[in-house]
């Protein structure tokens, strides 16, 4: 039995131009005590999906269950969930302690019980010195912790997070990422985490649900999304810099990269589709592979990003250290057969076609 399940859930908004489907026939199942990320660009319906799970919005159709219990028509308070909001939603006139204890007070939990739980949560999150302060006297990271504290003190089995880190600076975000993940593991919470940041998703998640336009594009472990993207959208969304997608065209011996006269990469049958190779799986080589012209070089310290042109198409190559290349230089690019992804003309992933024997391209 899964901790959270959505079965063909839909939600539309009435707008001036008519109804807009925010969540379109979405189904997924999350295991207990896992961290699940709803990922996607803004407006893809990920936050709406979270709010549907929370009960802050009512689903137009479909069924949502938490711990095997149908909660589709239940109010938020009856769903045994807690939630962290993007803006933290802290009560500005209450102290940190009162904010954290808000839910327990609502449910009239005993004084001793409150004090004990507060002490534990404050310890866990390092909020001890700030308990008597108001939220406005805290830094963004501390406010975030208070919001976390208010969520975990309820000891609800499910915790929902709506872009909880998007208001923090980059360094703090990296720290909080680890902290939230550790907290989730330690407390055994089933977490649903909404973000538009694929790095956050990849580094934290047990399962990633990538959405676009209210639909699920792919649902799987981070490694699945990275290694076998279901379509070109997933391929481009996951990974920085995004995967290179090269149009193919047919040549006498088979399919080649459009705008080049070789080498032949695969059978002619693939010629209508696309070839995808990640920048980090490509290498610059001398006199070996596909000929390319350097467009620009971006030095990042640990690696360099070399933008190249093959025929009429540009692609990026991520290579360690600095490279002694400049705009206009000729170079060769190679990659291994295992790094290749094929997509049909509609952008859907297809199985690898027959390899060409003797292609010098492959390491």
């Amino acid at each position, binding site marked *: 039995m899964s901790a959270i399940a959505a079965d063909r859930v839909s939600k539309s908004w009435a707008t001036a131009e008519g109804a807009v489907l925010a969540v379109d026939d979405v189904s997924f199942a999350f295991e207990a005590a896992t961290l699940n990320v709803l990922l996607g660009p803004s407006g893809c319906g990920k936050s709406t999906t979270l709010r549907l799970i*929370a009960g*802050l919005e009512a689903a137009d159709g479909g069924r949502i269950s938490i711990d095997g219990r149908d909660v589709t028509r239940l*109010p*938020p*308070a*009856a769903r045994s*969930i*807690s*939630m962290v*909001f993007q*803006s933290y*939603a802290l*009560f*500005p*006139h*209450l102290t940190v302690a009162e904010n954290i204890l*808000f*839910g327990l*007070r*609502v*449910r009239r939990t005993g004084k001793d019980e409150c004090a004990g739980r507060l002490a534990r949560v404050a310890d866990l999150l390092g909020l001890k010195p700030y308990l008597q302060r108001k939220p*406005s006297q805290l830094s963004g990271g501390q406010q975030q912790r208070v919001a976390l504290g*208010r969520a975990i003190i*309820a000891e609800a089995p499910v915790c929902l997070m709506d872009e909880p880190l998007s208001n923090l600076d980059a360094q703090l975000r990296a720290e909080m990422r680890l902290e939230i993940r550790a907290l989730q593991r330690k407390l055994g919470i089933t977490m649903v985490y909404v973000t538009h940041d694929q790095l956050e998703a990849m580094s934290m998640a047990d399962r990633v649900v990538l959405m676009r336009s209210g639909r699920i594009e792919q649902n799987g472990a981070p490694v699945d999304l990275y290694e076998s993207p279901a379509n070109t959208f997933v391929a481009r969304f996951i990974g920085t810099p995004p995967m290179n997608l090269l149009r193919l065209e047919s040549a006498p011996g088979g399919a080649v990269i459009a705008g080049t006269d070789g080498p032949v990469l695969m059978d002619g049958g693939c010629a209508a589709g696309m070839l995808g190779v990640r920048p980090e799986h490509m290498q610059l080589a001398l006199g070996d592979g596909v000929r390319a012209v350097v467009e620009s070089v971006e030095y990042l310290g640990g690696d360099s990003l070399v933008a190249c042109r093959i025929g009429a198409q540009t692609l990026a190559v991520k290579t360690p250290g600095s490279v002694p290349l400049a705009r206009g230089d000729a170079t060769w690019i190679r990659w291994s057969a295992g790094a290749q992804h094929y997509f049909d003309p509609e952008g859907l992933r297809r199985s690898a076609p027959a390899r060409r024997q003797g292609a010098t391209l492959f390491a």
Partner: protein
Amino acid sequence: MTRTREWIYAWLLLLPAMSLLALFTHYPAIANLWHSFHSTARANHPSVFVGLDNYRSMVEDPIFWQALKNNLWYAVGTIPLSIALALLMAIWVNNRIPGRGILRLAYFTPTILPMIAVANIWLFFYTPQYGLLEQFLGSLGFASHNWLGTRSTALPALMVVAIWKEAGFFMIFYLAALQSISPQLAEAAAIEGASRAYFFRRVTFPLLMPTTLFVLINAVINAFRMVDHVVVMTRGGPDNATELLLYYIYEVGFRFWDSSYAAALTMVLLAILAVVALLQFAFLERRTHYQ
């Protein structure tokens, strides 16, 4: 820019408002105080310094005490009710209900109408025999009653008009304050299972405290400044039952032409308002949350 030049700019920017305030507010207030220590100039008696004589006669003036008492009842009767009503209306029209724009406008209408016109409309409502209230109560079988002409009902009748008028005005402030409260606070509370009443008591009302303070000060000042309705509807009668402080000052000053005594009365009114404002700032501000 040097510091001196900054100072010059600051004072230049303050100058226009300062000079107008000094000319029309501060100077008259001080002149009034000066005036209150003198006798009123008559045809053959020029004004002379009389010290506290005006204040002494005030203590012995039963109509002054009546006006003060009336004004206190008027304040106690109108302020809490109009504020509570304003808050209720604001919460209601802050909800996502169809036609709320029209509803907001409807509630605000009493405020934009001229006071004199409003008073005349209500005068008709209260008119004996054929007034609206009389017709309505008559149809229910109640005996005829002269609302504005009876000692016991004249002041309450005026208070109803004030509440009706003030509530819409204060509602606008509450509405603005409510809209500045993030809806996510309500969602966070809903997830914790807080009822609407609990959320109002623990979150909304405390967050509205700055607005309440502001509205309260305005309400007190308005209660002691009220004169238009009295002029149109009762002229202080019957038997001084609706004699309010400012209307009494007007009568003393411009109908009995005792300007020195009116000046002394004005000082009392100013003192009352100053004390009330100071008390409110001192006590309420400490319990008020400012974001």
